[in-house]
């Protein structure tokens, strides 16, 4: 195993076969347990080119930004991502783990992924050939599979500010240090009259619950996009059912498929209630 500590983007991209190391919170577990033995590791930790945090009409977070810094940079902005970052691991993990690493690993349980889907974010990839922008909806292809080519860096993620009506929910056995049994992000972009619901850990990729989105759009249309939404119990229940219907969960050691479907419905109802209140 060869290790290079890159001091610039150029150095980081010099070897297309190299494996990137950012916070190490995924990669080092594999190395410690002998599951991964990359030939060439290129450390990209602290590269300033991956450290953007610009918040405005367009939000951009660099691939190398760790979760603690994501929280500091966003403050009250893009609350679904703030809530997701807040649930990741522990302070130790949040000080090391990065958004680029979450996208690099591309686990169906990755907590930022449903949020990036619901924000309709773009993943900005960088190789010696230049920059490539891939919408998140085309980025994740399967468990640990993505459109990222070998040697391509996640330089940043970008999205249009969708306003404050957003929620992220995660089910697990503890508030901290938990791989999601299921997670869900709901973004209600009131200005653009758009609703996006994305589910994680209940299928091979992040799943958009399109029928639930249609239903919610109708509800907001009816009650007025600029006003708080207080859906009837029946409408909220239907929203939950449609979200659960979109899930494609499996039984595994973290939870059964039946439980996962149930918890998606509960999280969807709560997310709708929370985002509805924020206008």
């Amino acid at each position, binding site marked *: 195993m060869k290790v290079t500590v890159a001091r610039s983007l150029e150095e980081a991209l010099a070897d297309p076969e190299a494996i990137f190391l950012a916070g190490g919170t995924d990669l080092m577990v594999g190395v410690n347990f002998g599951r991964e033995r990359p030939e060439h590791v290129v450390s990209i930790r602290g590269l300033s080119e991956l450290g953007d945090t610009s918040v405005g009409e367009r939000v951009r977070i660099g691939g190398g930004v760790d979760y603690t810094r994501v929280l500091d940079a966003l403050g009250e902005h893009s609350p679904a991502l703030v809530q997701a970052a807040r649930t990741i691991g522990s302070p130790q993990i949040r000080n*090391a783990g990065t958004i680029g690493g979450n996208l690099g690993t591309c686990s169906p349980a990755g907590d930022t992924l449903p949020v990036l889907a619901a924000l309709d974010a773009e993943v900005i990839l960088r190789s010696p050939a230049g920059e490539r922008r891939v919408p998140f909806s085309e980025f994740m292809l399967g468990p640990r599979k993505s459109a990222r080519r070998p040697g391509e860096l996640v330089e940043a993620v970008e999205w249009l500010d969708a306003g404050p009506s957003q929620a992220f929910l995660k089910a697990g056995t503890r508030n901290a240090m938990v791989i999601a049994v299921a997670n869900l992000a709901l973004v209600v972009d009131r200005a653009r009259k758009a609703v996006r619901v994305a589910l994680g850990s209940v299928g091979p990729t992040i799943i958009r619950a399109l029928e639930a989105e249609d239903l919610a759009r109708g509800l907001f249309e009816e009650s007025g996009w600029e006003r708080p939404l207080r859906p009837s119990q029946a409408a909220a229940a239907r929203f939950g059912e449609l979200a659960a219907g979109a899930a494609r969960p499996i039984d595994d050691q973290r939870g059964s498929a039946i439980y996962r479907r149930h918890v998606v419905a509960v999280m969807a109802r709560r997310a709708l209630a929370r985002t509805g209140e924020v206008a």
Partner: protein
Amino acid sequence: MSSLRLHVNGEEVEAEAWEGESLLYFLREGLGRFGSKNACEQGECGSCSVLLDGRLVCACLVLAAAAAGSEIVTIEGLAGDPITAAVQRAMVEAGGVQCGFCTPGFVVSLADLLRRNRNPDEYELREALSGNLCRCTGYLRIFEAARRAAAELRA
């Protein structure tokens, strides 16, 4: 194996290391500094907590070779730090130590919290210690120690 030079607790140190070695392994087996404990090697228990360029991380998840050029502070390096001393005293007085295996990790995490926040509320305390596991105390006495240390530092 090759020779690796790192900055640990304010000094330049050097030892033989395998390129894929974690910082935790390097500290313990390469340098013989056994204060940082090894229990899980997967970021779950926090007993290997250290400061890397001033930030609390798990040494088991840091690639030692990639820490070249960084400033590493371990529990040993915190000896003499007044915040750490307050935490250590409080841990003893509150009975926050039983077998002691988790203690260095808790002390490093608590000192990190109290450096940033002298008046943590209950939730901040729990969040700050959520990455540290203890199999003996049931945590209540560790939380009590945290409150005592915070109170002492505010006084």
